């Protein structure tokens, strides 16, 4: 992507213009500029994501839980937030978190092991197993991979997948960058 050298200057501009657009809620430019999977490829977007992720990481309680699950959750949540709710998968990530939290609270209070909505749906008994055509079965697998897209039609699913892949790529890039930063910092201090 021949963007990085030339993005530096418009980078500031895009962030500035992004801010300007926020002020004006009526203009469609705000909405239009931030939709579509290509938006994930900008440096500005990665910048925003990394900063939000750093902020979120700070909020993670250190000794709690298996560390990496919390980090993963935080990363996904921040990614979904960066999507600004325009895609189904981002909304699903955020709502799943909410429902999980509620379930957790309920479990704490009532001590009733009620599973959250999307988690333990009873599987179809394997009595009548119709062998789906390979394309259909793959579509099902894909729909399970993309969060919140289990009952989505194929064209919508493909659209969600496109955005999801772009977002994931950006997430990987940003996290690699942050990891590199922290690693470098750590090496510096330890040496």
């Amino acid at each position, binding site marked *: 992507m021949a*963007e990085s*050298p*030339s993005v530096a200057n*418009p*980078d*500031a501009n*895009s962030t500035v*213009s992004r801010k300007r657009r926020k002020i004006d809620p*009526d*203009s*469609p*430019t705000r909405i*239009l*500029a931030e*939709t*579509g999977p*290509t938006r994930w490829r900008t440096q500005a977007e990665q*910048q*925003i994501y*990394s*900063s939000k992720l*750093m*902020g979120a*990481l*700070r909020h*993670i309680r*250190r000794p709690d839980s298996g*560390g*990496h*699950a919390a*980090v993963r959750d935080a*990363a996904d949540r921040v990614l979904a937030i960066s999507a600004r709710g*325009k*895609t189904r998968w981002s909304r699903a990530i955020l709502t799943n978190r909410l429902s999980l939290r509620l379930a957790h609270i309920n479990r704490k209070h009532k001590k009733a092991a009620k599973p959250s909505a999307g988690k333990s749906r009873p599987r179809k008994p394997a009595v009548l197993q119709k062998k789906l055509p390979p*394309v259909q079965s*793959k579509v099902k697998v*894909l729909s399970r*991979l993309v969060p919140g897209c289990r009952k989505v*039609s194929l*064209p*919508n699913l*493909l*659209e969600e*997948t*496109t955005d*999801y*892949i*772009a977002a*994931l790529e950006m*997430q*990987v890039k940003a*996290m*690699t960058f942050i*990891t590199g*930063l*922290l*690693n470098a910092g*750590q090496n*510096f*201090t330890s040496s």
Partner: protein
Amino acid sequence: MNSRLPEMLHCLNSTTSENCEMSVLERQRSRLKQQEQLTHHHPPIPYFNGNDHLAYSGFHGDQALSDLVLNGGAMKPDPGVEHDDFRRFMNYGTGTTDFQMSCALPRTVSCPPYVAAASVDSAAGKESCKKRKAHNLKIAAEEKKMKGCAEEESKITEQNSNSKSTTTTISTSANKNNKGPSANAKKASDAPKTDYIHVRARRGQATDSHSLAERVRREKISERMKYLQDLVPGCNKVTGKAGMLDEIINYVQSLQRQVEFLSMKLAAINPRLDFDIENYILKEMFPACPPAMEPDHSHLQFNTSVEEVSGSGLEMVVGPMDATLRRTISAPITVQQSFLDSSSLNQIQQVTWEDELRNLYSMEYQQGRSTPFISQQITGFLEANHVKLEM
């Protein structure tokens, strides 16, 4: 045809449609001009795309017509009214077009914009022709919405339809039949003369409407698969839906695994910063005070696995960061520690904070991460604070 565009612009201005559409149209038009220059495609097609976008921007989510939409046209998304699918679909195209405009970069080549792939790059010429024809009629059908521009659009669609092959008229006319013969359809059928005849012929055949709807759906799917093909590496070699889906699934899984792995790495790094963070949060750096050499502390502040002590703690973090920032830019790892004075000072620093953050970050990226890692650390932490200040 170029002369038509300012006419349409003016026309749209005069309509009841909102002002925001104008900017969208302008953008699309300029993008189309860019596309022309870049792709050197034969003239009618970019104009046609431009018309698509123009038409779509005036479209206000008519439910009957929403199913007709195949490609990402430029649409002003109207969240309250539109179909979910339709809106997102529109957002696709508009996002890319407007995005290009906003970033002021000729991105038509680099990014795989939905519309560009569909319309300009007519490798699958026939298929895209069909879509354009469908757009043709959609544009015509939307005349109802854009009252002032009805004549303009119909003229344009007429011109476009005349320039296209006749094979494509079938699908579009059948589409119109599918969605119900409203006044729209009739108007649309009246406008392009070549289509009119085909519409007549098709009306009686109900079975074809199903097959044509099926074809529309298949075209939608194949177009999005093409888009995915650009996105997923290694998908070009495989043909057929099953193979491509396989590749896509593998790619998504690998990306998710990568994220998991990176999160483990991050989690491994974070707990190691087991310092007494509070000291640094509560202290503020003054440039007047003599610098103290405390490399690990400065490092600490950049590695933000710190728990927020309080709301005021947040501001305090900004303060020390600002001073350390200045300090570390000038001399490596000299951190000043002093005690907190007042929150007002913090806020002042916050104001200048943003600019520094932005400058640093742009500088950082300009040099392609070849800057000394110290500034990298700074930018890393700066981003975090930058977000806080934004919010």
